[in-house]
């Protein structure tokens, strides 16, 4: 508009896809440093369907009073192309209204994996038909989520709840102090363990390199968070001290080829512990963001 060469072209809406909404959350400094994201919950306020509209719907589609609500994380790549990742989906009833909770932990986990400076967290909310194809039900057209509270009160606005644990208290402590003996009170740490391959009978004449290696192990206990947790997760056990990062170990072995031994390199994955962490037993392993 500031160029003489440029002429504005007016457009008009021919169609509107009213059932897709984009929520934008500014996330910088929302997650405390040295903290672990435990759960992120998106709360949307489902507005009640007007009675007249509900009666009309029941007359036209007596068997379907539900719509599918899908939450996707939207990532705008550097080349401006979009990519969506499904994070939660559930059916909602036309007869219900009030706050609906969606698990968007995965979306925030993906967002955390972006390189800085990070874009805001973009969540795409889509309201679709429960079933595709005839007989078509218009239930999805009646589901409305509040976007702003009445008269700017903030009531009913979409909310993002972030539940975090302070790793200073609930995390591991890095490498163990070799001067301090291990007790039941030792906080989760990585301890040196040397594996001597030369001392193993089966490795004789077979394993040529290395003669041994530092494998490390995770020892100690993890502080448990206060009960009850602000959410319920099925099969969630206590926090345990486990290897969260590992490295492979290359080995040279002698293999017989044509009756003669020949050295060969083989890489064994997950042989050396790089990092120990406190993790929930039974918690889902976060997906890695793929390029």
């Amino acid at each position: 508009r500031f160029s003489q060469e440029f002429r504005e072209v007016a457009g008009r809406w021919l169609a509107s896809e009213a059932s897709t909404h984009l929520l934008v959350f500014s996330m910088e400094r929302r997650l405390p440093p040295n903290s672990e994201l435990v759960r992120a919950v998106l709360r949307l306020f489902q507005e009640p369907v007007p009675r007249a509209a509900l009666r009309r719907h029941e007359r036209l589609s007596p068997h379907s009073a539900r719509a599918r609500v899908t939450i996707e994380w939207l990532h705008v790549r550097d080349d401006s192309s979009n990519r969506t990742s499904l994070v939660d989906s559930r059916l909602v009833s036309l007869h219900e209204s009030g706050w609906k909770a969606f698990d968007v932990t995965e979306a925030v986990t993906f967002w955390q994996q972006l390189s800085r400076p990070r874009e805001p967290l973009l969540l795409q909310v889509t309201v679709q038909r429960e079933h595709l194809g005839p007989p078509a039900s218009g239930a999805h057209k009646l589901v409305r989520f509040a976007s702003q509270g009445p008269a700017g009160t903030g009531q009913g606005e979409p909310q993002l709840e972030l539940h975090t644990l302070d790793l200073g208290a609930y995390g591991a402590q890095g490498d163990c102090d070799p001067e301090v003996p291990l007790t039941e009170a030792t906080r989760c740490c990585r301890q040196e363990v040397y594996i001597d391959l030369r001392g193993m009978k089966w490795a004789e004449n077979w394993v040529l390199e290395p003669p041994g290696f530092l494998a490390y192990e995770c020892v100690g206990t993890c502080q448990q968070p206060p009960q009850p947790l602000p959410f319920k997760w099925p099969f969630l056990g206590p926090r345990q001290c486990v290897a969260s990062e590992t490295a492979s170990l290359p080995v040279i072995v002698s293999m017989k080829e044509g009756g003669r031994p020949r050295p060969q390199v083989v890489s064994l994955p997950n042989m050396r512990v790089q990092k120990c962490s406190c993790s929930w037993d039974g918690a889902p392993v976060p997906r890695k963001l793929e390029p």
Partner: protein
Amino acid sequence: LSGEQIRGRLLQQLHLSEVPVLDEGDVGELVTPAHVMAQYVALLQRSHRARSRGK
């Protein structure tokens, strides 16, 4: 990580059912070729780089 576990992982990676029987005499004179040693060192270095890079 026990010796048995390491043995099991080696066999699995090499698609073997048991540890090959090798005579000490054959292996004693065995010299690791330079290209095999270079491959081994490269894998070692890659493994250590991954370590310094962190998560």
